């Protein structure tokens, strides 16, 4: 078949010019002859179609009734469980579906079976005629001429200047959509207040955690002491301060210089907010000591100070330095030594100012 199907001029002289020469093209035979439908020729079929359409419209009425019955007969009052709501939802939907589909399919069936199905051809008209274009150009010229804007540059230039400056107030009023970031992202609630170290407490009830509660292999979701007592901005603080607490074999931790006293007996605390885009890194794989973010699957290795070993995050999870107070409760010895959560433009600047 290859000898006449690829249109290459090497094979066939006729193909190369096809499409460019009217003589070489098939002529448009025009619209195919119209074929009559059964309903056009057989009055019985037409009558049948008519009845079918009426039945479909009738179905719609039934659907509307189903909706109304479901709406009024099913009681959502006291004691109505989720099953009742599901039932009502299903019946309301079913009623609406019947009501709508009855009308819709009825009309479409009517149009297809009984209305004339002759396809007709209509000429397209030019979207724009040359005459119109010239007339429009003349009108625009006249308008420009009558305003005199070309002859009076002073008017034109001052108008342009005024219009260019006029939106400035609009921009200004949007300037107070939010406060300026300042250093808010650099600090969390973990910073000791008036010399008092914050205890690590359970999320969500806020009970403090003893070091002895943290058995090998266990993990705690942690919030700072006092978070639940906040009246304003509780979620804002929580969004920065949540921490994961785990206990590993102390031998498997290899703290880097300066972090030797950040853990206690193999108990380590890391920010739960992913350094990628801020989801909570909520999954702790006990066997492998990996932390996994369920949103984008960034994986952090606890034994390497939460270094990124897979996924889109680029930075380790910040570690919270912890110790034990004289009652045996775990406390944070300071705030995080770097901003938590997703990176932002001023992040490095903030980190330097924290550590200076």
């Amino acid at each position, binding site marked *: 078949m290859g000898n*006449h*199907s*690829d249109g290459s001029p090497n094979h*066939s002289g*006729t193909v190369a010019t*096809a*499409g460019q020469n009217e003589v*070489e*093209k*098939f002529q*448009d*035979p025009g*619209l*195919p002859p119209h*074929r009559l439908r059964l309903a056009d020729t057989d009055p019985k079929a037409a009558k049948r179609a008519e009845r079918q359409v009426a039945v479909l419209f009738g179905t719609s009425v039934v659907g509307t009734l189903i909706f109304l019955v479901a*709406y009024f007969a099913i009681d*959502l009052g*006291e004691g109505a469980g989720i099953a009742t709501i599901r039932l009502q*939802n299903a019946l309301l*939907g079913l009623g*609406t579906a019947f009501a709508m*589909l*009855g009308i*819709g399919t009825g*009309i*479409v069936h*009517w149009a297809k079976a009984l209305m004339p*199905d002759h*396809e*007709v051809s209509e*000429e397209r008209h030019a*979207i724009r005629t040359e005459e119109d274009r010239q007339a429009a150009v003349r009108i625009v010229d006249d308008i420009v001429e009558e305003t005199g804007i070309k002859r009076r540059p002073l008017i034109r230039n001052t108008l342009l200047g005024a219009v260019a400056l006029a939106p400035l107030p609009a921009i200004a009023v949007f300037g107070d*959509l*939010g*406060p*300026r970031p300042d250093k808010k*992202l650099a600090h969390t609630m973990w910073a000791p207040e008036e010399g008092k170290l914050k205890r690590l407490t359970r*999320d*969500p009830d806020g009970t403090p955690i003893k070091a002895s509660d943290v058995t090998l292999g266990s993990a705690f979701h942690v919030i700072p002491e006092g978070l639940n007592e906040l009246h304003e901005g509780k*979620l*804002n603080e*929580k*969004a920065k301060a*949540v921490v994961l607490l785990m206990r590993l074999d102390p031998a498997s931790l290899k703290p880097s210089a300066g972090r030797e006293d950040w853990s206690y007996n193999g108990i380590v605390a890391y920010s739960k907010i992913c350094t*990628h*885009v*801020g*989801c*909570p890194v909520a999954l702790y794989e006990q066997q492998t000591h990996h932390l996994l973010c*369920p949103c984008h*699957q960034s994986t952090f290795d606890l034994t390497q100070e939460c270094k990124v070993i897979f996924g*889109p995050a*680029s930075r380790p999870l910040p570690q919270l330095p912890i110790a034990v107070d004289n009652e045996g409760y775990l406390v944070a010895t300071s705030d995080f030594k770097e901003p938590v959560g*997703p*990176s*932002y*433009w*001023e*992040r*490095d600047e903030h980190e330097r100012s924290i550590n200076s």
Partner: protein
Amino acid sequence: MSAASTAEAPAFVAKTKTGRITDFVDARVGGSGILREFGRKVFPDHWSFMFGEVALYSFVILLLSGTFLTFFFDPSMAETHYAGSYVPLKNVEMSVAYSSSLNISFDIRGGLFMRQVHHWAALLFVASIAVHMLRVFFTGAFRKPREMNWVVGSVLLILAMAAGFTGYSLPDDLLSGNGLRIIDGVIKSIPVVGTYISFFLFGGEFPGTAVIGRLYMLHILLVPALILLMIVLHLFMVVVHKHTQYPGPGRNDGNVVGYPLGPVYAAKAGGFFFIVFGVIALMAAFFTINPIWNYGPYDPSPVSAGTQPDWYIGFVDGALRLMPGVIGDFHFEYVVFGYTLTLNVLLPALVPAGILFTVMFMYPWIEAWVTKDTREHHVLDRPRNAPTRTAIGVAGFVWYCVMWAAAGSDLIATHFHVSLNDVTYWLRALFFIGPVIAFVVAKRVALALQRKDREIALHGRETGRIVRLPHGEFIEVHAPLDEYKRYKLVGFESPAPLPAVPNEHGIVTRKEKRRAFLSKWFFEDRVAPATPAELEAAHGHHGHPAVGSAEENKSLSH
């Protein structure tokens, strides 16, 4: 003079009451003229023209169901304790927005149904716009004079996604809150202004107490108003251009063949609205969407595994997942001049979507530049007859789908019991090679289909009838096509590459060379339509009984 003319023409007096009312209105707004212009306007009919209608009708349903929801929804982020009838969340601390969403679901009759209708209609709205755009792309309907309408349609796609996203976040449940958290992370990665934009959007630190109210305003006022404006523009241009039509006998760039608006087309299109509504109602009745009561109120600490955004945001989320944060020892986040540049978030969030949308907006002009085609096109291309365009479209589609699949990488891994890391590695590879393979395969398939068309046009279709000739050879009888069917297979243009030509100074510019190169890339592989001479030759030299009897001709011409 006007007095004289009114006196001459006897005033029309309607006989019935309806007639008099109609006449009253007509005399004041000129309805007769409008009806005369549009009442019998011809619309071509094809199943693939329905997608745009689905989008329009889903939008109407969104407005209806959304209006109902606004009567009961309270976008406040103030704290409250739930007191509604859903027992598992009794007394739980939550925002007023979440509480009122629960009340809509459990304490307002039909409220859950309306929420379900609204969410399903929103998913369908974006989906039908996307499919409609694919139809328009693959059939070349974006060509002159419809380039601007393609742009309006693309803007509508973006607005639909914006409407979806702003609405998705409103219930302030755990899932949508995590979605907002991700958006916040992406915004913060923007160099220089990111932190400020984040603080402006959220009215301070994430999550703050302002964002739901702000999104609500965008969702119910600004975005729908813009969508409405764009729909008006879109439909206005459809009327100006008249609809495109598929190629076939009797159809050309100078006419439009189809059914008159009244009654057939109006009935079909109008009836279709009810069908779309009915189908959405069925989905709302039987398929739970966004069961916010299972997720609980937003809290920055918990998150559930397998979280997914609504489908149309998926490709961006997938791109975020695919991007490695670290390759070897190279970190994609680094410090320049003391500032943090976090490319592992910025690149995947902006680049793929940026490329997709830029190419989408510019494609009509790119193709017109390559082909130097300034004619108006009202007859569509069958996708196979524009192999390179089809291949570009398929490549883009596959690229999108790879990212989209990546948004469900964890679900793929748990569902098929494979390693999550392997799924990600494979998808990373497919991100680069998938579109290339798709391009090559789609182009070859299109060319093969064109060859099949030629084959059928020249030699007729296979009848399945095997005949033994006197000398023992078996052949299958081919039945020739009637002229209408054949014209559908041969009535297309097959442009050849346009070599570079010098400009008025006799110089072949570098831009022109690039254009010529692209033109060659577009059209060097081509299958020309069969010609009458070839048909003649085919009948002559093959000599098998294909050029059949009158009886066969008859059986085919129905």
